[in-house]
């Protein structure tokens, strides 16, 4: 099973902020981490992520800096900002609310309440 496009788009920002809240990262690593955590079921198209990162940086939620990686190439890393952490907590409340409601609804319907 893979997620539909709308859900992928809606979850991109909280996913990026959540991963960066655990430590700085770069584009390729963010994509791979989401793939690993979802068991390859959330498949971001590689090029889609970078415009999202630009937008989050523009909004002041994340910041970027360049650093030479182990490969010897210059690499752009991202880190979460204070506003990004606040935004993440708002996202978390909303997703937990939606998830909780769906859990209760589906739990009742199927008879296997959590």
């Amino acid at each position, binding site marked *: 099973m893979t997620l539909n496009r709308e859900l992928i788009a809606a979850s991109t920002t909280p996913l990026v902020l959540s991963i960066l809240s655990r430590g700085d990262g770069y584009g390729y690593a963010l994509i791979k981490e989401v793939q690993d955590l979802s068991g390859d079921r959330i498949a971001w198209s*590689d*090029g*889609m992520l*970078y*415009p999202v990162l630009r937008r989050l940086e523009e909004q002041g939620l994340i910041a970027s800096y360049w650093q030479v990686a182990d490969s010897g*190439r210059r*690499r*752009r890393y991202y880190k979460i900002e204070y506003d990004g952490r606040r935004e993440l907590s708002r996202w978390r409340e909303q997703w937990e609310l939606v998830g909780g409601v769906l859990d209760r609804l589906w739990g009742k319907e199927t008879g296997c309440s959590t």
Partner: protein
Amino acid sequence: MFDLNAAIGNWRAALAAQPGFSDSDLDELEDHLREEIGALEAADLSTEEAFLVACRRLGKPEDLSGEFAIADPERRRSFRLSWMITGALALLFLLLAAEVLTNIGLGTLGRIPGDQFLPLNGLGMGWVSAGIKLAVLIIGGLLIWRLLATDRSAHRLKRLGVGTIAAVALVLAGLALAARIGSRVYFFGGLPGADMPAITAFLAWIQFLVLLVLPVLLLVGLWRLVRS
């Protein structure tokens, strides 16, 4: 033998030709591409296969450009405006070059002693004029097309920026118009008649002012339109 660096260079040039990418965007995407290629090679793909798969996963240049443009629409507008100015300048140059060369050609013919070119004072002069202009427009148009329709040219335009291109366009347009005036004075100087060069020079200066003011107004209007 597949040359990975050359292939990445071509891929990068194709991206650079699209609106919406800065140099740092390209550096970041290239780093991503190389990382993906490395991972695919580690999974036993050949370098060429890894390159093709990695490119495909990253997306087509025009699709990527669209995504980046959504994130930064201002950059896309600037890129389009740069092309508009360059196109307008190229057209102006072609028209001026056609007229300058026609004036020089006819003026030179008119200065040849004897009356063997007398028919050129009438219908023949019109045909020669039309022929030279047509040749300049076709040959010049093809040359300019060949010069501009490359990824490298697009990338250079983008790096120069709208302000620089507009400033250079104005200076070059001024020089080209001055050449036009000179060529008209030269042409009419070869014709019989007392005050023709002086009258022509006066008219040419009036045209010069009009043709210089109009592009400026046009550019200001375009800029306001694009920014609105």
